[in-house]
């Protein structure tokens, strides 16, 4: 097939990694535009190598392209070198498959995986030659749809989107595309407003322009009201209840340049049984639903052959909880052994089983083990409902040290609700005890050097639809003090030579905090920031906190209102018109349990009545 590149050879050869822009990947889907009624441009708003590593896009690419009337093509953020050229030469942003302008498409779907991609979303609209605001885009422009975890509170970017898709793509996209076709073929002509009004009646389809938000004098929200009586007051997340009906990309796209994740990714389950109170993914993907191990074995075989990848990894939350993990890993290891394919393990709970698997797969001397206690003290771990005791951690470490490992990574969060200095000081103490355990467990003659315990912390960002959605954040000065406190305490420890500590800088955390729980008034700040040079904010080299501070000042938006303000439990939160299937009562109960440092059992041990039983599937109905 002869497709002319959107960029000239001269441009392609003048930018970094031109293969980002020419398509032609292994397993790319080709269709004849003559047979196509719906052109769907699917965008991951970050650089190609990141976007191509994302499983969700591949699932949707498969889902849409199974329709004969639809052609789903891909688009990624042009890197700053090409961004400059496209702006200067007025080259419209294009898709990889047919190298066509995005503006020619019926839909532009943008996945929102992390808050720091928001300026990249505006770049995509800008380079495509589309007005930023949905209300300024008439019938001649694509319908812009957002999906992914950020849509559970997409209010800060609500003005830029026509639709947010709330939930799992397999459920409602076909209904949405069928509706679009009916409207497009309407003898009276296609009317965008009429289409959006009807779309809002489909499960999981949120049309932000159809909800009016009003505010109290103190800046909090007074009401969120739908504009029509015939659309739901709350948009409920859609969930695929039967995992045997999943759509899986068994012929995955394989890029010609090395992506971040250069491997087969096997999604083994959705959702998590654990209920850690800080974790949004653990809530918004409930209920836990496992795929059958027989089906996964088939997928694995077919995907390895169709991609030629030399590595396979598993994707899920809390992988150790997958019921048939032992059988699956045994199968993969046997299947891959003589084919030069490696099995890469996600972070597993450290116990005899996982250590045995790791020993079979990697060189113990070179590899390091990861524990994520998230908090240093038992009290704090109970507050966050991380069902992990010091005995679990030390027991796992002792096993590992006996097995020959001597490098351990420990992940923690700082700034969790109710945190005291005592909780923080428990972090280096845990590291110290673990190092002491090494020297007690492993006789001198069997050690290869000293052990290395690497602790790292990130700052906690309260997320919508978690029991901590009401929590207040702390000012940057406090974050810095806490990190210093930890670091100083570590240096005093007996085994300090075996310990190291790294922390993330708090500036990005603060912005994430604003966007995670922001409302529609933050949109103008994001637009200002983009127009004044913010782009690729997820990249340390491009992120400028000063530029963002300037944007907040210029647009009169106060970051503290969204981060360090105390919220009352009855405040109308900006996302209160979205229903993730979990009741508000559950979140409140869990918030109170957190304040009492009281632990809630996991879904398999005992149902805590979060509300997700209403979906009619998964762990809620198991056993």
């Amino acid at each position: 097939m002869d497709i002319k590149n959107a960029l000239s050879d001269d441009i392609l050869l003048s930018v970094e990694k031109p293969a980002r822009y020419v398509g032609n990947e292994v397993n790319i889907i080709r269709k004849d535009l003559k047979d196509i009624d719906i052109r769907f441009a699917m965008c991951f708003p970050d650089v190609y190598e990141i976007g191509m590593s994302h499983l969700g896009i591949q699932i949707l690419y498969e889902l849409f392209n199974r329709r004969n009337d639809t052609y789903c093509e891909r688009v990624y953020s042009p890197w700053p070198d090409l961004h400059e050229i496209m702006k200067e030469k007025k080259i419209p942003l294009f898709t990889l498959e047919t190298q066509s302008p995005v503006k020619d498409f019926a839909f532009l779907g943008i996945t929102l995986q992390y808050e720091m991609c928001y300026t990249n979303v505006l770049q995509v609209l800008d380079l495509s030659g589309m007005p930023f605001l949905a209300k300024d885009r008439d019938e001649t422009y694509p319908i812009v749809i957002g999906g992914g975890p950020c849509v559970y509170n997409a209010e800060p970017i609500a003005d830029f989107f026509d639709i947010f898709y709330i939930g799992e793509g397999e459920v409602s996209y076909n209904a949405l595309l069928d509706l679009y076709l009916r409207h497009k073929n309407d003898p009276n002509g296609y009317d965008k407003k009429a289409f959006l009004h009807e779309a809002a009646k489909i499960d999981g389809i949120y049309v932000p322009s159809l909800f009016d938000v009003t505010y109290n004098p103190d800046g909090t929200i007074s009401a969120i009201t739908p504009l029509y009586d015939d659309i739901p007051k709350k948009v409920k997340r859609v969930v695929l209840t039967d995992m045997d009906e999943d759509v899986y990309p068994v012929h995955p796209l394989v890029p010609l340049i090395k992506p971040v994740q250069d491997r087969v990714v096997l999604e083994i389950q959705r959702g998590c049984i654990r209920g850690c109170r800080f974790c949004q993914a653990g809530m918004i993907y409930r209920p836990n639903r496992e795929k059958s191990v027989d089906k996964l074995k088939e997928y694995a075989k077919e995907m390895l052959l169709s991609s030629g990848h030399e590595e396979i990894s598993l994707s899920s939350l809390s992988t150790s909880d997958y019921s048939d993990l032992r059988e699956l890993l045994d199968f993969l290891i046997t299947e891959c052994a003589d084919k030069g394919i490696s099995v890469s393990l996600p972070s597993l709970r450290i116990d005899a089983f996982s250590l045995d698997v790791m020993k079979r797969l990697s060189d113990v001397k070179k590899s390091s083990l990861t524990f994520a206690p998230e908090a240093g003290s038992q009290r704090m771990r109970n507050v966050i409902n991380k069902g992990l005791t010091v005995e679990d951690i030390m027991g796992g470490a002792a096993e590992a040290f006996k097995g020959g490992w001597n490098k351990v990574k420990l992940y923690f969060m700082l700034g969790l609700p109710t945190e005291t200095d005592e909780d923080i000081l428990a972090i280096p103490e845990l590291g110290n005890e673990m190092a002491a355990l090494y020297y007690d467990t492993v006789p001198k003659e069997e050690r290869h050097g000293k052990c290395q315990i690497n602790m790292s912390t990130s700052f906690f960002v309260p997320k919508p639809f978690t029991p901590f959605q009401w929590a207040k954040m702390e000012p940057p000065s406090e974050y810095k003090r806490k990190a210093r406190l930890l670091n100083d305490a570590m240096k005093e420890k007996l085994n300090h030579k075996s310990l190291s500590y790294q922390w993330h800088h708090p500036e990005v955390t603060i912005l994430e905090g604003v966007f995670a729980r922001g409302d529609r008034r933050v949109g103008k700040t994001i637009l200002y920031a983009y127009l004044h040079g913010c782009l690729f904010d997820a990249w340390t080299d491009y992120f400028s906190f000063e530029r963002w501070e300037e944007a907040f000042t210029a647009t009169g938006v106060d970051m503290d209102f969204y981060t360090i303000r105390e919220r009352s439990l009855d405040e109308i939160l900006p996302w209160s018109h979205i229903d993730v299937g979990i009741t508000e009562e559950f979140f409140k109960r869990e918030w109170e349990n957190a304040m009492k440092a009281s632990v809630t059992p996991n879904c398999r041990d005992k149902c805590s009545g979060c509300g997700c039983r209403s979906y009619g599937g998964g762990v809620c109905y198991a056993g």
Partner: protein
Amino acid sequence: MPDNIKKMRLKFSKTGNMRFIGHLDVMRYFQKVIRKAEIPIRYSEGFHPHQIMSFASPLGMGLISSGEYVDMDLVCTEEEYSAADIMNRMNKVLSEGISILDAAYLPYKEPNAMASVAAASYIVHYTDKSFDMSFEEICRKKTVFFDEASSINIIKKTKKGERKVDLKPLIYRFDIKPEANGYFFDLMLSSGSQDNIKPELMLDTFHEAMGISTEAYHFFIERTDLYKNVDNTFVPLIG
């Protein structure tokens, strides 16, 4: 070597959008294609086995080629997999822009492709040029620059610093051929680990000698083949 370990050499082309893929990615691509095509390649030992495979010569970004080579060790007999079988299996799964043109089993002792390369041939066209020169004139200039010169000294920049190189004995063929609306270059240059001369370097030197700056033209370069030296004759790596 055990009887079932065989050495195979493949000749392939790289065209179209594949010219935007650098050498490391071409290697990565072949590793995947070999697994996709279920080629019985030999793997190294250890926790992270890799395919025993080596390429003759990296091709620069933007260049196309109809004469690239890769060697690989296979674990099979020629009866199980003929050279044609291997070639067909790979061509079935290759993406647009890379095709296997030829395949041959080699004696196991044959030096690998990379060590064998002694010369490379190129066809070079202008994609655009902002100077005027007739075919006759450029041929005259070429005679002075090349045929009548006893040496063509240049300073070659290497990773270790600068080095004086005489291009003259490293240019094995320098022809300019007429075509509709102009002319193109037909070159054979020294290649390999010893004295590797890139066509851009040689042609830039020629244009500089004619008083034409590098900004005044762009090239489209095709590498047409790679050669080994057999008794002072250049023969293609499969041939």
